[in-house]
Every structure is written in structure tokens, then in C-alpha cells.
């Protein structure tokens, strides 16, 4: 297969995944008693496109399934069939199955033919009428001997996109014809030549001529012409085939399928146009800068202006490029309604889900990687957060619980809040469990919030019974780890009896960092600005020594461990003025550390270059960047430095 065809298939698969998503959200939102016709049309169009494409691109295995699916929707649309909760369930199951099959196609694997036949059969049972896929085969075939045709098109036939000569040619391609023009119909020079008056006599001789084939060229112009006299002897044969569906009832769609992550994305053309514009402006600025006078000297007069313009344009270009990677968080949210629906149904709970801010934009990678943690938190909220209706009534609450999910931008970050009005975290139980498992010591002085957040500690689960729903071996620690790997944070606010709020804070992009440059000896490092709390002049009398080494700094009423970056990175400290040393107070996971440096330089946005790929993974650094003077500067990984100091006790 040529490369192009493979690319086309990929486009089709991506389109189909989108289509399935449209179908799923359509089915979840539809009002079962009074389905809106336009909603059904939207779902119909999606499955219709998948069906059409599947046949065209050679994914023939799913054509039958999609066909039955489409038929049912058509019947519902024409009110021949009434939508029920059960039908909706089967629809969702079929969508899961289709997704799994498409994923196999994408991975070049054989699709599971059993699932296909099971789901097709399930769908088949919904519809009252027989599948019409075999309609075409059921048509009676007529064979004739010797046909004669008189063909007289309407005079305006040329205005309708039809041309008689092509129809005759088409007929000629299927049968051996002899043709005569009726001479009386030939127009004179005075006639309007665009109005056809011609009349042809066509004779086809032979045995066993397929009448359908003969009729076909005229099929589309029946109304615009007169076709007369069919002389034939009729013979008939019937070639109807029944398609049998395998009877193999089993719950097939439950099979876990791999998640398909697309590596291509769609970008609004307006955004690309903006970039093209900017590049155009850059070219102008460049030519401004390289202007020379008659002696070949660069004209310095306008250089300041040009540099200022260049600076602005570069920033706009940077923002523009980042915005190309931005997608609405929508795609990460799209799985939530389904999860809530399925999970709550499993647990017999009634839950109202509100989602807001789904158009908030974020980097594509962040959006893709946040989906799993989100799903986990949502499952947890439904399973452990929201109480059963009875418990809720006893507690004087509405019988149905509410889960709110909202996304918004705040201070250059994407925030996602997931709140529920359930029972909240049982602080006491968490505390006891944490003591038991040795996560904390009795001597640790922890606030309620700190105790609650212990649920993010590795191996921590307070659920009395490991339920089918969230007890999947993945705990909240993994959620937290995933979020941290995206350079994000998660906080938990909870009030017993009233509910919980998980607040996730994520960077808008992973490629650019707001950096604070700092000098340590002769080296320049980049600190992520987000983790810096303050910087202070080191005062000798606030330093506590442990075994002769300055280890703790007393800042106001707090004692903060000191990490001497000179020692940590084995940099020689040959500055003469020991008083001029600075401490940068950074925070990670609510714990502070003081990093000793020589001095702070300027702040700037830096582009993160991966160290693992270009060199090797190095503790203490999250990456590198190239500074204005061309030198490489390492970016401090505050998380790993803090962990060295505080240990891994999150």
C-alpha cells in the first residue's frame, strides 16, 4: 500500500475516534422520553461517516455493525422505534466495542471478530425490521433479448448538467448498440441550439441482455426524456441472499481497550495566519537591522527601535507558537459523564454532574495526560465521596449527590476543581491509618488539611472495602505522581460530612518556564519562579550549625533547612565578601528549603531543553536552557532537591 493511502487511513481513524466521542456525548445527553431530532441526526451523521469510511478504507469488518447501528437510529428518527434506557446502554456498549476495534486497526492488529458479531447481534435484536443490507441483492434480475429504444431528451436537458452524448456513450460501454438519429429532429440554423430537439433510435441486439444495465444510463434522466418501446422476452432469476448473524451472546464490550493517543492535531487556521503574519513582520525588522549606508556601515540610528520591535515580535511569536499547541480541556473532560454514569449506576447512586469551563485552553500534552488522573479522582468521588441515598437522607441532605468539575485560568496556570457534596474525608480514620502504616509519627504536628492530604501518600487506601469501582490497584499516590510529572500540584480541601474539593494546578505549557537566573560561584542556574517564595540576605546569627556545618536557618519563627548549592554542585566559593551571600527560599509540597547562592540575576522565560535526550538523566536538574550569551544553564529541579532533604515523605 502506498504511503498516502496509509496516511488517509490514519485520517479516517482519527475522524472516527472523534465521531465516536460525538456519539457518546450525544447519547449521554439525549433526553430519552423526548429525543430531539437534531441530536439524533448528529449521532446518525457520525456513525454514517464511520460506516462510509470503513468500507472505503477497507475496514470491512465493522461495516455490518455500523450499518445496524445506523438503521436503529434511522428508525428512532422516523419514530418507528422508541428510544429506551436499554437501547441507550446497548449504544454505549457498541461505541466501546467500535473504539476497541478501531484501536486494533490503528495498531495493525486483527480486530476481535467475536466482539463484532456479539455487538452486531445485540443491536440487531433492538431493531424490529430486518437489516436492509441485502436489499440490493434481492432485486429481481431481468434478462431480455433484442431491445429497441427511442431516446428523446427534454429540450432543456443541457441546463440540468446532463449531456445526451455521454448517456449514449455510457450505454455503448455496457451493450453493443446501433444508433440512428431521427433526421426530422435535426435543428435548422435559426433554431436555438441550446435547446435540444434531437431524437435517437437505438437498437441493441443479442441474447440475455441485462435490462437493469440498459436502464441504468437513463436512470437519472428518466424525467427529462422520453424513452419508448422496450421489445423483449422476459426471463427472470432471483438471487437473494440472507445474511446470517452469529448467535454468540456474551458481554463483549467490557474488554479493556488501549487508549488511542493521536499524535496529530487540528489547528485553527486563524492561529497559523497570525504566525505567518508575525514571521512577515520579523523579516521587515531584520531588513531594518541590516540596513547599511553608502560606506557599508550599519546605520545605528534605528537600531534601538528595531531591537525593541524585534523583542516584541519574538514574544508574540513565542506566544503564538505556544497557542498552536493549545486545545480546549474539553477532550480530557469528555470521558467524565460516561464514568459518572457507569460508576453511579454500578453503585446504585444518583448523581448530578455539572461541568464548566470545558473550553479553557491548555497544552495538548497536558490535556492528554491529565485525563487518567481526572478519571481516577472522579471514580473516587462517586465511589467513596458521595454517600448512598439512604445515608444522605439520614444526614439531612438531598438524596442525589452532586459533583462539580470546573476548569479556569489563574495566574498563568490551568486550575481544575473537582468538588463533591459527599461525606468528605474522615480525618480521624486517615490519621489512624497513617500512624499504623508508619507514614507519620505521633510526634508529627499536622493540621487537618495535612492529615487529609495523606491520602496521596504511596500505598494509602482508607476504603473499608476495596470496591469493584475504584479499587483497581491504583491509588491517589499515582494521581499525585502523574500530576507532579506534569509540573502540577494537587490540593485537597475537605470538610467532614459536607464534601471534598480536589484542586489541580497545571502549567499551561510544558515547553516554557518562567525562570529566575541565579549565580552560584561562576555558574548560572535557572530557578523556576513558581517555586520561589522569597530571597533574603543571609544573616550569620540566624544560622544553626549541626556538627560544624550550617544546616538550619531561622527565618521569622520558622526553621528551614539550608542546602548549600556550592557544596551540592561542588562549585568553588572564592567570593571575598562572605556577607553578600543570599538564600533563596523555595517551597515544594508545602515544605520550605533555603538554597545558598551568590546573587540573583534577571528573570526571563526560558525554553526547556531535555537533559535526558541530549545528555543523560541528572539528579537535581529538570533540564537545561541556552542563555542570551549562548551559554548553557541548568534548570534546578526543586522537587528532587527537596526530596533529598526531606526524604520521600510527601
Amino acid at each position, binding site marked *: 500500500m502506498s504511503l498516502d493511502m496509509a496516511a488517509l487511513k490514519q485520517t479516517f481513524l482519527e475522524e472516527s475516534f472523534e465521531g465516536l466521542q460525538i456519539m457518546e456525548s450525544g447519547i449521554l445527553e439525549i433526553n430519552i422520553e423526548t429525543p430531539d431530532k437534531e441530536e439524533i441526526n448528529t449521532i446518525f451523521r457520525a456513525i454514517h*461517516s464511520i460506516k462510509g469510511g470503513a468500507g472505503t478504507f477497507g475496514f470491512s469488518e465493522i461495516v455490518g455493525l455500523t450499518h445496524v447501528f445506523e438503521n436503529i437510529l434511522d428508525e428512532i428518527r422516523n419514530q418507528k422505534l422508541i428510544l429506551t434506557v436499554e437501547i441507550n446502554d446497548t449504544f454505549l456498549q457498541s461505541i466501546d466495542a467500535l473504539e476497541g476495534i478501531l484501536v486494533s486497526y490503528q495498531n495493525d492488529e486483527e480486530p476481535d471478530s467475536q466482539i463484532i458479531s456479539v455487538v452486531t447481534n445485540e443491536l440487531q435484536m433492538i431493531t424490529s425490521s430486518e437489516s436492509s443490507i441485502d436489499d440490493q441483492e434481492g432485486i429481481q434480475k431481468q434478462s431480455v433479448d433484442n431491445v429497441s429504444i427511442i431516446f428523446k431528451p427534454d429540450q432543456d436537458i443541457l441546463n440540468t448538467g446532463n449531456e445526451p452524448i455521454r448517456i449514449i456513450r455510457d450505454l455503448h460501454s455496457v451493450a453493443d448498440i446501433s444508433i440512428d438519429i431521427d433526421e426530422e429532429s435535426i435543428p435548422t440554423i435559426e433554431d436555438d441550439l441550446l435547446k435540444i430537439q434531437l431524437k435517437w433510435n437505438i437498437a441493441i441486439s443479442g441474447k440475455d441482455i441485462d435490462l437493469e444495465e440498459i436502464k441504468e444510463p437513463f436512470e437519472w434522466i428518466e424525467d427529462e426524456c422520453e424513452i419508448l418501446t422496450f421489445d423483449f422476452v422476459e426471463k427472470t432469476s432471483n438471487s437473494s441472499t440472507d445474511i446470517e448473524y452469529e448467535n454468540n451472546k456474551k458481554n463483549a464490550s467490557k474488554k479493556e481497550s488501549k487508549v488511542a493517543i493521536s499524535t496529530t492535531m487540528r489547528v485553527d487556521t486563524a492561529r497559523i495566519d497570525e504566525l505567518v503574519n508575525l514571521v512577515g513582520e520579523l523579516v521587515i525588522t531584520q531588513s531594518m537591522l541590516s540596513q547599511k549606508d553608502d560606506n557599508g556601515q550599519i546605520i545605528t540610528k534605528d537600531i534601538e527601535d528595531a531591537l525593541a520591535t524585534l523583542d516584541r515580535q519574538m514574544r508574540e511569536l513565542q506566544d503564538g507558537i505556544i497557542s498552536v499547541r493549545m486545545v480546549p480541556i474539553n477532550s480530557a473532560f469528555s470521558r467524565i459523564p460516561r464514568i459518572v454514569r457507569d460508576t453511579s449506576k454500578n453503585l446504585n447512586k444518583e448523581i448530578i454532574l455539572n461541568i464548566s469551563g470545558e473550553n479553557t485552553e491548555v497544552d495538548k500534552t497536558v490535556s492528554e495526560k491529565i485525563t487518567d488522573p481526572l478519571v481516577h479522582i472522579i471514580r473516587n468521588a462517586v465511589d467513596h465521596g458521595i454517600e448512598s441515598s439512604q445515608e444522605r437522607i439520614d444526614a439531612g441532605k438531598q438524596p442525589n449527590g452532586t459533583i462539580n468539575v470546573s476548569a479556569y485560568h489563574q495566574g498563568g496556570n490551568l486550575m481544575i476543581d473537582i468538588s463533591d457534596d459527599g461525606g468528605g474525608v474522615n480525618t480521624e480514620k486517615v490519621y489512624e491509618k497513617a500512624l499504623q502504616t508508619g507514614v507519620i509519627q505521633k510526634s508529627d504536628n499536622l493540621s487537618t488539611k495535612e492529615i487529609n492530604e495523606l491520602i496521596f501518600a504511596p500505598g494509602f487506601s482508607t476504603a473499608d472495602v476495596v470496591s469493584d469501582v475504584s479499587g483497581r490497584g491504583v491509588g491517589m499516590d499515582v494521581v499525585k505522581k502523574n500530576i507532579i510529572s506534569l509540573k502540577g500540584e494537587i490540593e485537597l480541601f475537605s470538610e467532614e460530612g459536607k464534601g471534598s474539593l480536589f484542586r489541580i494546578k497545571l502549567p499551561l505549557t510544558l515547553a516554557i518556564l518562567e525562570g529566575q537566573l541565579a549565580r552560584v560561584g561562576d555558574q548560572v542556574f535557572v530557578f523556576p519562579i513558581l517555586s520561589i517564595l522569597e530571597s533574603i540576605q543571609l544573616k550569620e546569627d540566624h544560622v544553626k550549625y549541626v556538627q560544624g556545618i550550617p544546616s538550619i536557618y531561622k527565618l521569622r519563627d520558622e526553621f528551614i533547612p539550608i542546602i548549600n548549592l556550592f557544596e551540592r554542585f561542588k562549585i568553588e566559593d572564592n567570593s571575598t565578601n562572605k556577607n553578600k551571600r543570599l538564600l533563596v527560599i523555595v517551597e515544594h509540597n508545602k515544605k520550605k528549603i533555603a538554597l545558598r547562592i551568590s546573587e540573583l540575576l534577571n528573570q526571563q522565560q526560558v525554553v526547556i531543553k531535555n537533559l535526558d535526550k541530549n545528555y543523560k538523566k541528572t539528579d537535581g536538574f529538570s533540564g537545561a536552557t541556552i542563555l542570551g550569551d549562548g551559554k548553557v544553564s541548568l534548570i534546578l529541579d526543586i522537587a528532587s532537591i527537596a526530596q533529598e532533604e526531606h526524604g520521600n515523605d510527601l
Partner: protein
Amino acid sequence: MKILVVDDSKSIRSLIDFSLDEFQELQIVEGIHGADALNRLDEHDFDLILSDVNMPIMNGIEFTTECRKRGITCPILILTTESESSMKAKGKAAGANGWIVKPFQPEALIKTIRKFIDLV
């Protein structure tokens, strides 16, 4: 020679584009639904129009009717599946001149188009 291809599915549009790639003198203009395609009609003169039926905003039947209303006289072929045989009659009534049955193979597409225009 110019062809207008109207389909909401990018993969189908690309497939048609790909199938007709060998015809050097053929220019293909795309429309993502009927309403979008109507705008293309103002910008170009087409020798042939291929249009899907099931599309959001304006479907292929409405689009065909509108084309004929605007005095477009080039052949219009609708793209449908076998199961939509009722669309054939509707398409015909709207002023279409033929149909291409989905799924189609590139060769079949070329063959059908050849009935209406001369591909070189």
C-alpha cells in the same frame, strides 16, 4: 478543469483528492458542507460537483437544489451509501445527475466521473 468536492469527512475528501491525483490538469476545490460549498461557487466555475448527502448545516440535497436554483448547469454527483437508496430519488428530484456509491474504490470513482467529464 475544476471539480468541487463537498464532504464533511476529511478522510473522504482526501481520498477523492488522492484518487484523482494522476490527472494533472484537474483542480480540486473542497467544501466541508453545503453552505461552505455555496461560497466556493461564487469563487470558481466548476465542471463537476461531487457532494456527500449527510452533512451538518446544509445537506447534499439542499445544496443540490440551491445549485440548480442559482443556475449552476454542471453535473452534480451525490455520494451515498447503498442503504440510502431513497436518497437517489431525492437527489434526482433536486437536480443531481448521478451518484457514487460509498464505499467506492478509486477506479470506480474515476469511471463514474468519466461519464460526465473528460479526464486527462
